[in-house]
């Protein structure tokens, strides 16, 4: 994975020194809160309901074991012993003290981490397929280009005060695990007719109060032009994106209002003028970054794994875990292991200091010291030899990270909600917790099959409810929490926005409502049809009828 050179390190160190001075001036009263606010936000420090929250960037979801161990240290030293992995592959700490921030940032800088551009109207952390560099189905390791974009976007002087925040996601696989079509810019690597690898460029996707699927503005962009093309898009957006209304300021609104044809024309016109300038990426530059992502030293593995076969036959729990929580690795004899941060009754995406440290140890021993964070708020050990699966499973089970529920009904995405967030209208985490209790029977969970529930505590949609197979949106009515349900959303290569089912339901009714929807699905599904397929085949009407008949 990428390691900073002295230049990258100097930039982050200089940032720490700068913020240390700003905090000193704030505490000394030389800066008012109004003046300080944009400065702290530029370092990822938000003021939430109860305390400061720090969001730390995990570039394209890749962590070294040393970084994860340091996050454990941060949790223990500066927070209440836990952190929360987010839907943008970042991590948040919820109980930060302002006066400790400079030391905290210095501790992070020691492992090449920071909170830069995790807030504000700038280019945010660039997200990617959590299996990049390991997945059997990928065309190329997209992290090389994510790192190139990370450097280009860090402190970009022209694009640090955009109309609104700006999110870029990239997939190097035809099976989109990065939700690229609901980002401001989505990049999909593919081959053109000549066999060259480049990018399909999509623009104007997003969630929030106006969910939109991104539209393709360029079918194939050669790699060497990646940065100039992005700069052209951002330049058009910076000039013409709306600034009169916060809720209409994302690029999706610009694309929607002027139409994709005009957007394409504006971007292409700008691009023609800069495409052969200093942003061209020579192969040597790409190769130098790619060298950081060289495959680890895989060892030849035996074709037969009698010990694993034995455990699979003898232990139903292991067999179930192996069936759901692994993903095919591109190297024979290796597997991608998902650690589920969705055990029954706990907050989705939370991990304690000890859990982080143990996953870091497992990564050192069994996964070439690499860990990934997923946008579904789980962790991944990307390169585990099949022979090591039993031991990895046992260790994950000991810390509660081996629930065999990846991609199933209890693998719920949830934003922090009203338990923490000052924007929220309703709580998200308790709904997720109650759902995991309701669907605690693993046989039933596996019978229901592939199903994504996504919960947001407000219309900003951090919990991705628009693209949940079942989406749950918290709203507030007369001081009470209510929940609106959507069906049929999806964030993958066939992305779609869910359809609102009907009037919002009370907090008490929402768990029964999900159960009711599952009942309808089980009754009408055909063959091995997933929940999403069923909704797409029959529409929402049968679900709606049965739900509101009994409600």
């Amino acid at each position, binding site marked *: 994975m990428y390691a900073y050179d002295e*230049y990258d390190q100097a*930039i982050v160190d200089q940032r720490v020194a700068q913020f240390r001075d700003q905090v000193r001036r704030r505490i000394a009263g030389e800066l008012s809160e109004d003046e300080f606010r944009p400065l702290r936000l530029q370092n990822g420090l938000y003021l939430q309901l109860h305390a400061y929250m720090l969001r730390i960037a995990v570039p394209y979801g890749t962590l070294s074991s040393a970084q994860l161990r340091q996050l454990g240290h941060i949790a223990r030293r500066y927070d209440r012993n836990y952190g929360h992995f987010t839907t943008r592959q970042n991590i948040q700490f919820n109980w930060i003290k302002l006066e400790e921030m400079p030391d905290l940032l210095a501790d992070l800088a020691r492992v090449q981490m920071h909170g830069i551009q995790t807030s504000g109207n700038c280019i945010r952390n660039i997200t990617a397929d959590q299996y990049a560099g390991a997945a059997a189905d990928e065309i190329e390791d997209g992290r090389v280009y994510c790192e190139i974009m990370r450097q*280009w976007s860090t*402190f970009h*002087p022209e694009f640090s*005060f955009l109309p609104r925040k700006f999110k870029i996601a990239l997939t190097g696989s035809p099976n989109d695990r990065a939700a690229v079509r609901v980002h401001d810019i989505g990049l999909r690597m593919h081959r053109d007719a000549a066999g060259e690898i480049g990018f399909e460029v999509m623009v104007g996707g997003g969630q929030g109060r106006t969910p939109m699927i991104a539209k393709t503005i360029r079918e194939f962009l050669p790699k060497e032009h990646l940065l100039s093309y992005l700069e052209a898009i951002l330049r058009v957006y*910076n*000039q013409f994106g709306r600034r009169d209304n916060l809720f209409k300021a994302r690029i999706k609104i610009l694309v929607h209002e002027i139409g994709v044809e005009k957007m394409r024309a504006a971007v292409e016109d700008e691009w023609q003028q800069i495409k052969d300038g200093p*942003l061209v990426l020579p192969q040597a530059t790409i190769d130098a970054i790619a060298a950081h992502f060289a495959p680890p030293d895989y060892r030849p593995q035996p074709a037969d794994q009698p010990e694993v076969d034995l455990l699979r036959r003898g232990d139903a729990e292991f067999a179930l875990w192996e069936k759901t929580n692994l993903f095919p690795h591109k190297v024979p004899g290796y597997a991608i292991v998902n650690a589920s941060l969705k055990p029954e009754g706990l907050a989705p995406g939370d991990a304690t200091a000890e859990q982080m440290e143990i996953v870091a140890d497992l990564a050192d021993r069994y996964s070439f010291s690499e860990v990934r964070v997923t946008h579904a708020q789980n962790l991944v050990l990307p390169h585990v030899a099949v022979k090591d699966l039993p031991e990895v499973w046992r260790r994950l089970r000991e810390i509660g990270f081996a629930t065999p529920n990846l991609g199933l009904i209890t693998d719920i995405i949830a934003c922090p909600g009203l338990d923490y967030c000052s924007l929220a209208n309703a709580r998200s985490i308790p709904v997720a917790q109650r759902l995991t209790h309701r669907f605690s029977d693993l046989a039933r969970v596996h019978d229901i099959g592939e199903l994504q529930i996504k919960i947001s505590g407000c219309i900003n949609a951090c919990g991705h409810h628009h693209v949940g197979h079942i989406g749950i949106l918290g709203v507030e009515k007369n001081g009470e929490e209510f929940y609106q349900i959507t069906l049929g959303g999806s964030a993958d290569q066939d992305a779609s926005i869910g359809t609102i089912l009907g009037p919002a339901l009370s907090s008490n009714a929402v768990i029964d409502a999900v159960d009711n929807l599952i009942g309808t699905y089980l009754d009408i599904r055909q063959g091995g049809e997933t929940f999403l397929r069923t909704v797409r085949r029959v529409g929402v009407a049968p679900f709606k009828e049965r739900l509101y008949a009994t409600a």
Partner: protein
Amino acid sequence: MPLLKNGKEVEDPWHLAVDGDTLPADGPVIVFLPRWKAEREALLRRNSGVGVRLKNTDKVAELADDLDRLGVVALEFPKFSDGRAYTQARLLRERYAYRGELRATGNVLPDQLLFMHRCGFDAFEATDSRVLRNWENVVGAFSLFYQPTGDGRATVTNLRHTRAASDNEGSR
């Protein structure tokens, strides 16, 4: 209003003419784009210098043919968070090769100076005296940069290439 130019506080010799005002008989003046377009010939006949101030919705291309006649182009930051003038500045410097004074006006805060400087601004009108005091600090806060912007600073990529080349040199 204090003016910071090339890192130093200077007397501002320019008079900003609000639309409709009669121009002073002599002395350098800055006018807004509509007046520039309406009175271009007369303004150019003045021998004391003329500059144009653009709204951040104006197209810089409108000045493209006249840039070598202008002593100042002034751009606006109505709020520090409205970043349109950063793009205007880069276009003026990099696309239209403007070499004269490029002035930032409006809500110019110390923490934005480095971004502005990188985009090509070399003069800053500041309502806030800290802008003047903090020049060395804020512009010196970072010594390395990733993006090529035409500001003359070497990028990290340039530095890496130079180092790789000298490493190769050394190994021969």
